[in-house]
């Protein structure tokens, strides 16, 4: 019997940290009005999420603090430019995404490399039995082989629980591009999982 996902894992309109989207929008409005306390709350809400996202996307710990600071400084300085057409989280993650891509491009790292799926598979093959520690290490290596754009989709979808339309807004790309990036990323990662079979395509 197929187990279906819980339908109430995250009620629509509620951010992972418990504030509603409208609460967050109000915090942005108060920040735009110069209310430092509102901004501090936003900062504290988004600090852990952006740290995780930027670590995962860039794989460069030395970049993370600076990118996070730069992202949230934009939130403070440009809160008045938030137009309410997207969720606050989409707006903030999009700022972080653009800053991360720009930083990686300045380091000559292929940030948007759709050819990453052509690289040889890393780590042990799926036929080998690997324990959880090995699996984690192998997945880590596989993630390292992905492009930053692909890693961003993986993290936004799996960890931050974002839908593909929201991810498309963040990455400023068509939804099919999001699905394609996810497809290649998953193909590489799933090949390492116990029980994985040859690609069905």
């Amino acid at each position, binding site marked *: 019997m*197929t187990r279906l996902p819980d339908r109430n894992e995250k009620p629509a309109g509620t951010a992972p940290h418990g504030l509603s989207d409208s609460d967050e929008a109000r915090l942005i409005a108060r920040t735009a009005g110069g209310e430092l306390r509102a901004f501090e709350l936003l900062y504290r809400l988004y600090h852990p999420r952006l740290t995780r996202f930027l670590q995962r996307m860039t794989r460069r710990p030395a970049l993370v*603090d600076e990118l*996070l600071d730069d992202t949230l400084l934009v939130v403070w300085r440009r809160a008045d430019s938030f137009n309410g057409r997207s969720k606050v989280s989409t707006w903030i993650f999009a700022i972080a995404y653009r800053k991360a891509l720009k930083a990686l491009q300045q380091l000559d790292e292929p940030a948007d490399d759709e050819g990453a799926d052509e690289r040889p598979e890393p780590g042990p093959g799926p036929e080998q039995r690997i324990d959880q520690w090995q699996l984690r290490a192998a997945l880590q290596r596989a993630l390292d082989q992905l492009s930053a754009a692909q890693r961003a989709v993986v993290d936004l*979808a799996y960890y931050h629980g974002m839908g593909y339309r929201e991810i498309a807004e963040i990455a400023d790309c068509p939804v099919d591009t999001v*699905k394609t990036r*996810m497809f290649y990323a998953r193909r590489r990662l799933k090949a390492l999982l116990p029980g994985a079979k040859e690609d069905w395509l």
Partner: protein
Amino acid sequence: MTVVHLDPEGHAKVQALLPWFVTGRLDATERAEVEAHLAGCPRCRAELALERQLHATQSVPEPGGDVDRGWASMRRRIDAGALAARRSAGPGPSAGWRWALAVQFAMIVLLAAALLLPRLDGERYRGLGAAVAPANAVVMFSPDATEAQMRAALRESDARLVGGPTVAHAYLLALPVADDATLARLREQPGVTLAEALRAGAAP
């Protein structure tokens, strides 16, 4: 009945949606499509099982950064930006910084109001009664200021702590004389980020 699992395009479409099916982020229509397909497709159900495994490996929380340190750094950048704006603005501040100055002014007004309001009926909070002088200044410390630094700052300026911290981490002080020299000395103390008189030329 349509045998959807024989349609390769059906497989591809469903498999492309599986990550968001697992995280519960599909709309009702898409979810129904995926569920209908899965019901008749063992191959895609196997993919779903792998998808759940993959989701489990990628949704594990990791240690985050130091948010207090980060916020302190952000405050310094905000303060530095406001200070630079004040210095460079001269008699005609640029439009881009006018709001920042206005915000600072508004915060000072709000802080003063927040501090002054409790004074109106503050005696019932002051268990030490007549031994406590009225506040005539406010001080703020950096988030990483140590208790020893805070005590030293009060001692060096001969200040008595009469209230706080407020929500903005401000403390009310009773200074012997809240003049410019005393406040300047207080501002020079390690850990102090702000020291202001509650009233110009205030004296006890």
